[in-house]
């Protein structure tokens, strides 16, 4: 039985290899895949090195600052960069829309910033043509071009009757044609497999690399089944091509657009101005840490004096201004984190709703799974934001501790009028070591694979449903 299936599949491959149209299409798509894979790999690899270099430079710059008042260092700030994970050479994911670096400073959580365009050509949007996009959108088009006539061609050219008369059953024919198309599509996964192997040697995340190959293989098999199904049902090649073009259009363009709009409608997100306005109102209530004289801090002052049984701030063993800075920073951060968590929860809800449209479009399913496995999804970006915030809070509070414990209150308040006090108010640059080295890595391969379970489930469901319908139809194939 297997040799018969292979014979039919081989004859189909021969047909493609001897058809100028099919060979032309195969070559064009192979070139497109190689080109986009190479360009994406080079771009992301360059970004990896560039951001790693910038991260090191930012840390060196911070640590090389001269002796100075610790609060000046709080405002001098620090940059952190999200270094793209190795699998981003396949799917850069949200990298280009969420920003890749952040400026960390006291009293505020800045939004992520975007890298400058390296060339004016990128302003035209060509940089968005990634390997992932080529596989998700364009490879199905190639499969449609070569596969839309798989079964219907046998009917149109009157070879179906002899095939069946030679003992081939409808199901065998269906499966052999599926093998032929699946073989061609899996051969197209070669550039992806090479990139996954490269990524594997970069960060040793074999599960994630295998997962990327697995999800794209599954995705292409879904398209093979879909194409074969249409080719079995309709009665002409042109109709088959038309129907499949419509299916592609809705799966690749219409449903993803509806998914985004539905997510936005189901979980409305307030605008940045509105969010910032609400947060600023709350922050004003917390008080300004630069002004120790605000009523809220007068109570703190009284409590401290009572605690140390002192009558003047100068008599306290700690710098009151530093204490105020610490308390204010903690309170501000609590408010900012609450708003950030709410915003991230809202974004995650929107992403979840959009991803659920994978039940309607395999393109939506594979894109969500691909981003999760590559470590370039929204969840990973949120992890980056949280980690960056943790670093920010730690170094700001570290500097505030230096302010509190090492800088005398009297020097602090007199430094603008007394040159000697100003000199003593400069803390040793050794204290800038409070800055932790920032290293952000996405989740391990197993966790990323677990996060991609839903897209996998969606694609498996697509494959099973299409196969079940296909087998049902194949049983009844007649000349």
């Amino acid at each position, binding site marked *: 039985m297997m040799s*018969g299936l292979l014979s039919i599949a081989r*004859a189909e491959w021969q047909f493609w290899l001897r058809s100028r149209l099919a060979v032309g299409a195969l070559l064009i798509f192979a070139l497109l895949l190689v080109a986009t894979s190479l360009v994406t790999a080079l771009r992301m690899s360059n970004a990896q090195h560039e951001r790693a270099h910038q991260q090191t430079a930012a840390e060196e710059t911070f640590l090389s600052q001269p002796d100075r008042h610790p609060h000046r260092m709080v405002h001098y700030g620090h940059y952190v960069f999200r270094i793209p994970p190795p699998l981003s050479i396949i799917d850069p994911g949200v990298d280009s829309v969420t920003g890749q670096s952040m400026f960390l400073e006291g009293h505020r959580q800045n939004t992520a910033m975007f890298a400058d365009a390296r060339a004016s050509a990128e302003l035209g949007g060509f940089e968005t043509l990634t390997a992932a996009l080529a596989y998700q959108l364009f490879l199905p088009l190639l499969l449609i071009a070569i596969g839309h006539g798989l079964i219907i061609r046998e009917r149109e*050219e009157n070879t179906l*009757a*002899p095939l069946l*008369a030679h*003992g081939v059953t409808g199901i065998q024919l269906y499966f052999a044609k599926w093998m032929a198309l699946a073989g061609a599509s899996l051969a197209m996964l070669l550039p992806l497999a090479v990139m996954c192997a490269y990524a594997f040697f970069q960060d040793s995340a074999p599960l994630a690399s295998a997962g990327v190959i697995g999800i794209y293989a599954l995705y292409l098999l879904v398209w093979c089944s879909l194409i074969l199904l249409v080719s079995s049902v309709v009665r002409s090649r042109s109709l088959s091509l038309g129907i499949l073009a419509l299916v592609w259009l809705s799966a690749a363009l219409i449903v993803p657009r509806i998914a985004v709009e539905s997510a936005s409608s189901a979980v409305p997100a307030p605008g940045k101005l509105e969010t910032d306005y609400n947060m600023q109102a709350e922050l004003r209530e917390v008080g300004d840490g630069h002004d120790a004289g605000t009523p809220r801090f007068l109570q703190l002052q009284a409590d401290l004096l009572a605690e140390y049984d002192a009558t003047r701030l100068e008599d306290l063993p700690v710098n009151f201004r530093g204490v105020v800075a610490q308390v204010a920073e903690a309170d501000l951060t609590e408010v900012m984190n609450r708003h950030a968590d709410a915003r991230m929860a809202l974004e995650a809800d929107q992403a979840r709703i959009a991803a659920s449209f994978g039940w309607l479009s395999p393109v939506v399913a594979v894109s969500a799974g691909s981003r999760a496995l590559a470590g370039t999804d929204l969840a990973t970006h949120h992890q980056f934001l949280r980690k960056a915030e943790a670093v920010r809070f730690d170094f700001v509070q570290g500097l505030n501790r230096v302010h509190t414990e090492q800088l005398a209150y009297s020097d602090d308040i007199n430094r603008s009028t007394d040159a000697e006090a100003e000199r003593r108010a400069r803390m040793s640059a050794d204290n800038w070591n409070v800055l932790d080295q920032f290293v952000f890595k996405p989740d391990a391969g197993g966790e990323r694979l677990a996060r991609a379970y839903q897209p996998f489930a969606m694609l498996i469901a697509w494959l099973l449903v299409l196969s079940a319908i296909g087998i049902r139809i194949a049983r009844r194939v007649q000349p």
Partner: protein
Amino acid sequence: MTTILSAQALSVARSGQQVLRDVSFDIEQGEVHALLGGNGAGKSTTLLTFLGFLSPASGSAQVQGREACDNIAAARQAIAYLPESASLYGHLNAYENLRYFLSLAKAEAHQPALDTALERVALQADAREMRMQTYSKGMRQKVAIALAILREAPILLLDEPTSGLDPAAIDEFNRLVRDLAENGRTILLVTHDVYGACHVADRIHLLHKGELVGTFDRPAGMNRIDTEAVHAAFATHSSA
């Protein structure tokens, strides 16, 4: 004698329309029968029913004593079928087509056997390795006939086998059919060609609008059926 093909009170409907009505005949081993009739007479439908592509609405169509529609695999294993238009792959050459279909039928495909079969159907040697999309209709038909021979199946169902062949090739084909029958093959062929049918068949069944309207046997000791009688009956029903 063993009955190889048998239609008994066979009625078949296609797309809701009755295309065969109460047709009965038996074909013994080594016999050549021809189904003769105009367009829509039900000739090809009869062949497709023996192949199990169509199920009888009533009556039976048996291959080697078993109901074809209930034993499809066995029926198709026993039958070599030559469809109306020689249906082979244009992107393959003659050898590749033969090897392909023979592998599907799990039959042997040795090169000398392929050459012998192609020589029997008189396909020029220099054409055998050319893709069949460059073949004339007659050349394609020859390859299809060679395939039917190579199958070595005990039964041959041939739908318009001489369509597209030149007169010399038709004579050669008729000799080939008689030769195959003498070697024990059972052959049922469908044709419009009264003259050819009379020369090659042991018995002719005349079909008209799905009904069997006449049967003509080769008289003992004669080398052909009475062409005039068949012509007359055919003409009567065609004008009716």
